[in-house]
């Protein structure tokens, strides 16, 4: 039983390190444009989340009713609603407040277009 867990930990560890290094070097070497980079890096992070969930946190392997999985899915749902909702609202609010004086516009453009 324990060496099956060992294999799970080793695979989890190796793939996590791999994903981290890929994300790191993709950014450092500026492999593609900023927009594309942001999505790749975000995708790699979500991938690593899934890897850790399966190999380290052993999600979904509980016997009986899967309460852990149910609460996890609901938590992810709430997090998505709150975070994406907040970003949409705040971006919309900042956009509406945008008729600021010229130098603020320069800062605003620089920060927001630059990400």
């Amino acid at each position, binding site marked *: 039983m324990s060496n099956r867990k*060992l294999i799970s930990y080793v695979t*989890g560890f190796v793939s996590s390190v791999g994903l*981290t290094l890929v994300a*790191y070097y993709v950014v450092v070497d500026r492999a593609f444009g900023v927009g594309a980079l942001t999505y790749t*890096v975000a995708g790699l*992070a979500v991938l690593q989340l899934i890897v850790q969930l399966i190999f380290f*946190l052993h999600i979904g392997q509980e016997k009986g009713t899967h309460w852990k999985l149910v609460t*996890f899915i609901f938590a992810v749902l709430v*997090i998505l609603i709150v975070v994406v909702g907040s970003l949409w609202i705040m971006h919309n609010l900042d956009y509406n407040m945008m008729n600021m004086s010229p130098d603020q516009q320069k800062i605003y453009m620089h920060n927001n277009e630059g990400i």
Partner: protein
Amino acid sequence: MSDLIRVVDAEQATRNERKALGFWIYIMTDCVLFATLFATYAVLHGNVFGGPAGKDIFNLPFVLAETLILLTSSFTMGLATIMAAKGNRHQAYTWLAATFILGFSFLMMEISEFGSLIIDGNGPSRSAFLSSFFTLVGTHGLHITVGLLWILVMLWRFYKHGLKKQDLHRLSLLALFWHFLDVIWIFIFTIVYLMGSLS
């Protein structure tokens, strides 16, 4: 008397199972707490108020080292749980100590990063970006400190009482907590540092 022991042991087993679910739900609520801090960072990271932006202050190789250290500590924590489950007290103790050392060095690296920022005058009260950066990464650092304290307690119990059943249960919760902190760090590493250095 024996049936009393049997009843109490059965009771302890069901209570441990409930504790495992309760602790998992606590981790879900902690995820929501971090999600709020991430949302605030995402909204405020542009407000540098004349101070340095992300790419001016982030030292990526340093952060990569931190990330790899924390990932390794997550792996050694996994080994500690396997060895403890097998009853191998010495191996469990060593791997847990290794996890502590890795975790502690991660914390020291983070504190040194914060210290150098504050000394350069870029403390948390310099701008909204720095406030949200320090709070998000600092809250993770606080959780790491709690984790390290917990590891110390477990090391003491292994040293003094060996591998008792209740301590194995506590170790499984500790491992869950440690892996959760590693997952949070992956998102900090990606959103704060990698994306920060892109803008």
